[in-house]
């Protein structure tokens, strides 16, 4: 078995995961998104001229992020555990598929689905921008960067959902993943709080602040809504951070799954 064969198996598994998500009508969330965004764009176009862009970018990107996080968590927790429960895994693992290849393939399948979903939503956001501002501006490039960061968030959320579901129930995994998303979105505040706290509390706060995924650094929505640029250093830092963080969570999931007796 050469490495080409290995990579192609991961690709096949990823594609099958994507196909399953599409056939399970996951992309239907786009309809709700489109309705929300066009409603907001029309409404805001009626009432004001100055804050139109601000509202559309803020609301649009926040919706992209929340819709995606919900999808990432709800599919992520079932990626592997559902296949164990339904025993669809039996006939996959009795083929030349390593368990880690299966986990990584499933992960890529879900993140691929989210990339496609985000891409389609991004088109919606830019159409809404065009509708309210009648033209594109140079600062709209930063909206693309914000969208890229949102995709990085999805990588981490998917990896965490997969990690939690490798040892706990679907419900608990969803709760853990969502809690980490909320806490991680406040990571910068936590870090600030940790700096001014002393003693044991300070240690604990510091540990938590640096262990939870730093979603706040990945959230530049209000910044780009105001048209402020995103420093190149942050783009690089965030990319490396998100890749490392999700790789660690996936490795954890693989380590647990590799030892697991299927029911």
């Amino acid at each position, binding site marked *: 078995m050469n490495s080409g064969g290995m990579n192609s198996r991961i690709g096949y598994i990823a594609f099958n995961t994507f196909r399953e998500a599409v056939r399970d009508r996951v992309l239907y969330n786009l309809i709700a998104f489109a309705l929300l965004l066009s409603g907001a764009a029309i409404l805001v176009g009626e009432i004001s001229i100055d804050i139109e862009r601000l509202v559309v970018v803020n609301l649009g990107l926040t919706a992209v992020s929340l819709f995606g996080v919900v999808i990432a968590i709800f599919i992520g927790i079932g990626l592997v555990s559902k296949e164990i429960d339904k025993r669809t895994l039996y006939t996959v693992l*009795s083929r030349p598929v390593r368990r880690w290849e299966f986990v990584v393939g499933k992960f890529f399948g879900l993140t691929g689905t989210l990339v496609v979903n985000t891409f389609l939503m991004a088109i919606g956001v830019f159409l809404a921008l065009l509708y309210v501002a009648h033209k594109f501006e140079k600062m709209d490039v930063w909206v693309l960067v914000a969208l890229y960061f949102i995709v990085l968030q999805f990588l981490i959320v998917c990896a965490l959902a997969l990690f939690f579901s490798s040892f706990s129930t679907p419900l608990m995994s969803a709760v853990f993943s969502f809690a980490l998303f909320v806490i991680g979105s406040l990571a910068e505040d936590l870090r600030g709080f940790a700096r001014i706290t002393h003693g044991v509390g300070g240690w604990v706060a510091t540990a938590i602040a640096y262990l939870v995924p730093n979603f706040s650094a990945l959230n530049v929505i209000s910044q780009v809504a105001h048209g402020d640029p995103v420093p190149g250093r942050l783009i690089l830092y965030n990319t490396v951070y998100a890749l490392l963080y999700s790789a660690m969570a996936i490795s954890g999931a693989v380590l647990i799954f590799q030892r697991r007796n299927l029911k």
Partner: protein
Amino acid sequence: MAAIEILDLEKCYLVGFWRKRRKLALRPLRLTIEEGEVFGFLGPNGAGKTTTLKLLMGLVFPTAGSARILGMDMDDPRVKSQIGFLPEQPYFYDHLSARELLNYFGQLSGVPAKGRSARVEQMLARVGLSDSAGMQLRKFSKGMLQRVGLAQAILHDPKLVFLDEPMSGLDPMGRREVRDLIQQLRHEGKTVFFSTHILSDAEALCDRVGIIHQGELRGVGAIAELTSERQGKIEIIFHAQKVPAGLTSLGAEARVSGDMVNAVLPEGQQDAALEVLRRDGLKLISLTPVRSSLEEYYIQKLRPTDVQREVRQEDDRKGVGV
């Protein structure tokens, strides 16, 4: 070379929520299956058949022991491209059609892209699913899923096939087809290891059978030897208080139970035996060819011997809280 060499595989589950108890699903199992052999794995519900197959497939991990498959260690990844597996009550991705599923599994098994779809169509035809090949699997009946399961097990032309209750859920025609399929695999020189409850299937198909009960291999026998022993005998049952002398002289093995006598004797003595009954005025209840010798063997092997019973009690005592 042996196709399967099981070296004291053992599986112990921890059951119970609070006070965990050890449950031995499979006692150390030692068994060798030769290449080209069709081997039947028989045993009652909960005997450990599925557990054995899941251990060999690497779906669960043994608490002790190991196995070699086709000369390789059982967790050598190369093994998997040469074996096929049909799980018990198989279930598949229900968003796919049968054709898409087989195509996907063909990809995972490394079936070359060239000729893959032809192979898929061939397998669909072989299990009689050509007409429903495009339908989503969520709409398949249990027996249809079983057929898909058979198709995916032989899709990549494996040397060795593991089938967990291949006939279950099938209609009479389906059973017949699976029997033919296993025969065909034998002619192609494949090794087949299958579990079943249906003794007549095992008798018709297997070179050898193994009998497992309560996680313990009770016996392994060649079908040819088992059947030669008791072929050509009949069993007659009739009302009587004691065995008539005339019957014993015909070479009957007879025993009395209640007011009935049960006698087994060579087929050729049938008329003479009936003549004895008529002369003594005894009422015949039934006359049947002797039931399959495999059935006899099976039932005999399920009876616990005293030694085995003792061992079991000792094991249960050892099942301590964890």
